[in-house]
């Protein structure tokens, strides 16, 4: 599969401060690519550079084969962006917002009407078509933001923290749309987020910290590389069990209520089988993306309230 985005030693400096430090990565066509990091890690700066909004200090990038800095107009036709904060006009209706944005790409009224037909049903535009943007709920606004980003049928969709500040239902709805776009439109989706659980469905994840890429891979690879497994062993707290744990290859253990929390990487199956007479029940829990981030940066990410 061809690369939709190729980034080579991209850098952005503001005076002495380096916001993005020589990062390199690639995104395959049709991939859901997650860009992970805390606020200020350099995610939005990277998106702004790739979307031609912000000039880069150095480095190279190609989007759909077009060279950044030399073929910016071609790139602008290939990308759609859902910004972190909405960029549509509060006082205008959904119709006015979308029709005027369509003109930015050179579409006439009738061409825009044709294009919007495709979104009409899927994004339930009819119910909000003549409502002012400021009167919409958070989820409805995000829905319109996504349609705005897609009106010119881009090949790459940048989603800059699209679910921040949304209630759980709206977040689910936004993700339903994203998944729909992946399945039916075969769009390359470049997602930045600081919600760890949102990266679970990504094909590839890049983790940034202070402008640097500190890890990349599939969610499964990152979890196995940077986190261990946890065994929840439902049994009684007694000397015998303590002895068993002391003599096994566990990293650490702790008794809570009715079970031991046991951190161990290898030999979980053997351990459970060997001590099957002592066990009431058990669970094996793999590390989460939160654990990955914690291991890599020593910092915990923002809790997702959904």
């Amino acid at each position, binding site marked *: 599969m061809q690369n939709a985005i190729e980034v080579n030693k991209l850098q952005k400096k503001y005076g002495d401060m380096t916001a993005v430090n020589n990062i390199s990565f690639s995104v395959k066509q049709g991939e859901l690519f997650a860009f992970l990091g805390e606020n200020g890690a350099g995610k939005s700066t990277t998106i702004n550079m790739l979307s031609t909004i912000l000039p880069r200090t150095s480095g190279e990038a190609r989007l759909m084969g077009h060279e950044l800095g030399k073929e910016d107009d071609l790139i602008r036709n290939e990308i759609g962006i859902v910004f972190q904060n909405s960029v549509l006009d509060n006082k205008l209706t959904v119709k006015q917002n979308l029709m005027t944005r369509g*003109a930015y*790409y*050179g*579409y*006439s009224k009738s061409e825009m009407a044709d294009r919007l037909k495709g979104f009409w049903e899927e994004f339930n535009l009819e119910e909000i078509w003549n409502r002012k943007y400021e009167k919409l709920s958070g989820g409805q606004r995000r829905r319109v933001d996504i349609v705005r980003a897609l009106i010119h049928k881009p090949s790459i969709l940048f989603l800059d923290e699209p679910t921040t500040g949304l209630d759980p239902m709206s977040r689910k709805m936004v993700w339903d749309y994203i998944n729909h776009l992946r399945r039916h439109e075969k769009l390359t989706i470049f997602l930045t987020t600081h919600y760890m659980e949102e990266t679970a469905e990504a094909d590839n994840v890049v983790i940034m910290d202070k402008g640097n890429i500190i890890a990349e891979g599939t969610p499964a690879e990152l979890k196995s590389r940077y986190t261990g497994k946890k065994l929840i062993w439902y049994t009684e707290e007694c000397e015998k069990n303590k002895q068993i744990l002391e003599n096994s290859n566990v990293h650490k253990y702790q008794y809570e209520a009715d079970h031991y929390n046991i951190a161990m990487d290898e030999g979980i199956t053997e351990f459970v089988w060997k001590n099957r007479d002592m066990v009431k029940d058990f669970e094996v829990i793999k590390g989460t993306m939160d654990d990955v981030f914690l291991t890599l940066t020593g910092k915990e990410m923002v809790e997702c309230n959904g």
Partner: protein
Amino acid sequence: MAKLRGLLGLTKRNMLVYFNNKGAIFFSMLTPIIILALYLLFLKNTFLSSLEGAAAGLGNLISDGDMDQFVNGLLLTGIISTALLTIPYNALEIIVKDREDKVDLDMISTPVKRWEIILSYFLAAVTTAFLQTMIVLSCGIGILAANGSMYLVATDLIKLVGVILLGTVSSTAIFMFIMMFFKNMGTCSAFMGILSAVSGFVIGAYIPLSEFNKNIQNVCNLVPATGISILIRNYLSGGILRHMDESIGGVDNGAFMDAMREVFSFNTYAFGKSWTLNQSCTYIIIVTVLFGLAVRIIYPKVYNKR
């Protein structure tokens, strides 16, 4: 046509945002409304007593109705001249608001050129201000016509429309330049407060400029808006002034008309020299072009820095 659609779409969007914001429309008309209120409360009587004092030696050659219409013409000049400042300013506030809300990033990420974005703000403000001021002018002339004749001839009306267009273009170019230095709406609103307070004095709406000392007159006459107000005064009240002169029948050798032109600032004086209307017009055009060039050169750099 497709190439122009981006520019037209942006212009339409800017105008829609302005006309959908009732607060902006109200505040753009606030100073003209204040001038109207002050006029009804005491300014009219003040102007009329000066006029009656000057005409005292002429017996009953000048009718009360003509004097009334002449003073009404001065009021309408004040209203239109301040509207030509406050309407373009309010229409241009969208530049700062878009920058503050990062709405301009959405424009920059599309194939529309940076100069098209800048031109669209300019075109939208000029169109908005021209339309709104023409409505005020039409209503004003309509009300004055119901009160009696203004002795306006077709050439005066055509020149009035031309001056209003020049006034909108001039104010828009100057304010666009000033807006470059405003980072947020707070500063923008503070400047609007100063503009509202000062504009009525600078253009001679509250007190004729001839009442100020020479230094202040010199400074005020260098402000293009003052030149515009002098041009409007000439074309709007010139007819009734000529009619009053005809009523006198030449017994004063035109002394009354000359005195009125001096007292109510029908002439431009700067640094000891009297400027003809054509010279005033040329000066305003030169200043407008210089500010327009500054905007053309500096603004794209502002957007490239985003």
